[in-house]
């Protein structure tokens, strides 16, 4: 092991303060409904960031909360709402009534957001695809351009590359240098991390480098691309983390019911975000019983693999 590799472990507060200034383009929720970095998003809200561009396929209700808190000027996403309950009311208020502020929506599909990040990760200006041909998304999203294939007669769509400022990715375990193991739904996490100029990892567990090196196929990206590692157990709640805790379905439905009106959202964000100082305080507010009920009931360990030679 290289003992000279400096630890990148910092508090959530410091990671956001140093790496997510106002005006940033931020990838969040790259693993769709799994491992959404709610703790990081809430810290961004507490630190009062403004004019962010959010990038992600869906991000469930995290995008809605950050939009409602006034942190966001633009969203580039495939779907913005509440995956199991329906609409995101803050998103609707912002688009329809400019509350708390006007936002620009750049409508993507899951495949085009994946390709935009893949192009960024590949270092090329665009990736070609057939999706969106004939749709109004193609007409309204300036990052999607129709072109003729240079090698045959096909018409294609060029999806412009995205190079976000920072990707925030929740992972199961990481070492201090930012080498991380992730399992479960990967979504666009690998390309999202590689396309971004910086990566913040939020880890359920910090482990020895030997643990990561024992199974390099499971490593998200090489640690040298990572700017900060935050140890934040429970940091994805109410989203699930495979092998650690389940999805708190009721929490999503309570959010849906309680944020239908603006004053309801204001009460919600005060209770769960601005009135708590950290994820630890949030989890205390959530209660041990509720966290306990989400813990893994039946472990299902994979068979070990042999890297010997």
């Amino acid at each position, binding site marked *: 092991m290289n003992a000279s590799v400096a630890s990148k472990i910092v508090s959530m507060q410091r990671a956001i303060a140093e790496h997510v200034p106002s005006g940033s383009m931020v990838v969040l929720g790259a*693993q*769709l*409904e*799994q491992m959404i970095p709610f703790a990081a998003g809430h810290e961004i809200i507490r630190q009062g960031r403004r004019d962010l561009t959010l990038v992600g*396929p*869906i991000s*469930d209700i995290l995008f809605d909360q950050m939009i409602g808190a006034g942190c966001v000027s633009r969203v580039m*996403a*495939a*779907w913005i*709402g509440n*995956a*199991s309950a*329906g*609409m*995101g009311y803050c*998103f*609707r208020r912002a*688009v*329809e009534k400019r509350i708390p502020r006007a936002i620009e*929506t750049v*409508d*993507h*599909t*899951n*495949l*085009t957001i*994946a*390709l935009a990040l*893949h192009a960024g990760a590949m270092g090329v200006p665009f990736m070609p*695809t*057939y*999706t*969106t*041909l*004939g*749709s*109004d*998304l193609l007409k309204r999203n300036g990052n999607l351009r*129709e072109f003729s294939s240079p090698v045959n007669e*096909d*018409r*294609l769509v060029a999806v412009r590359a995205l190079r976000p400022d920072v990707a925030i990715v929740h992972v199961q375990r990481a070492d201090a240098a930012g080498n991380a193991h992730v*399992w*479960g*739904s*990967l*979504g*666009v*996490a690998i*390309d999202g991390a590689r396309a971004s100029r910086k990566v913040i990892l939020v880890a359920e567990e910090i482990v020895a480098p030997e643990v990561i090196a024992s199974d390099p196929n499971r490593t998200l990206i090489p640690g040298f691309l990572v700017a900060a590692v935050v140890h934040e157990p429970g940091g994805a709640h109410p*989203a*699930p983390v*495979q*092998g650690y805790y*389940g*999805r708190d*379905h009721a929490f*999503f439905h309570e959010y849906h019911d309680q944020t239908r009106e603006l004053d309801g959202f204001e009460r919600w964000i005060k209770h769960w975000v601005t009135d708590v100082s950290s994820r630890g305080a949030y989890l205390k507010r959530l209660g041990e019983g509720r966290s306990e009920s989400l813990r893994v009931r039946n472990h*299902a360990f994979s068979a070990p693999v042999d890297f010997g030679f």
Partner: protein
Amino acid sequence: MVAAAAREIHDGELVFVGMRLPMIAFGVAKRTHAPGATGLFESGVIRDTPAPELLYTMGDPSNLLNATYCGDMLSVMSLLQQGRVNVGFLGAAEVDRFGNLNTTWGSRNGQQVRLPGSGGACDIASLSQRTVVLLEHNCQRLVSRVGHITSPGNGTGNGWRREQGLPLRSGPSAIITTMGVLRFGDDGEAYLASVHPGVTVEDVLSNTGWTLRVADDLATTPEPDPAELAAIREIDPQHFWTKL
């Protein structure tokens, strides 16, 4: 509705499973007539067994336990774009006579309402061999012309998809509603192929936002058989998704 959706899956097929009711339909098909079907989920998951418990989202941990494959989004979307996926399932806020879908801008009492957007719907509608749409049947949902094409069906009729450059082997196959099943004629327009038990043709026509054509050999959708009903109850015992 769920049973009718499940019957659109043939044994051995690759199925792109969308959010909500399609997750139940896939589970029913797997437990009944299509045990050899394989499900692809845009989160990167591929599985050839039904998930062991009710899914609220495709990212629920139970959908990953004993999956065949967990990769990234492009690894499943690439199979869709290659044309390997036989059937893709979608919900929608609005569908029109040519099977175009809108999940971006709706209207309620004359006001424009911003909806969540495409997700993977446009990709599935653009690229899967057959697309099946599930939605409630009323004049607000089945409209003559959608205000916004989020996910392309047959556009303005036969030949439109080819003109747009969409893959030749792709396109809408069925619209399954709470009242019946619509299919598509050679001209690309939907027609009523069957009505669900207890529903009349007049009910369907008066709840459709255009003059819907009716098949000469209009059928009654078969009732869910005991095995299908048992599968639906096993998957969704609390009727979270199947409030029928």
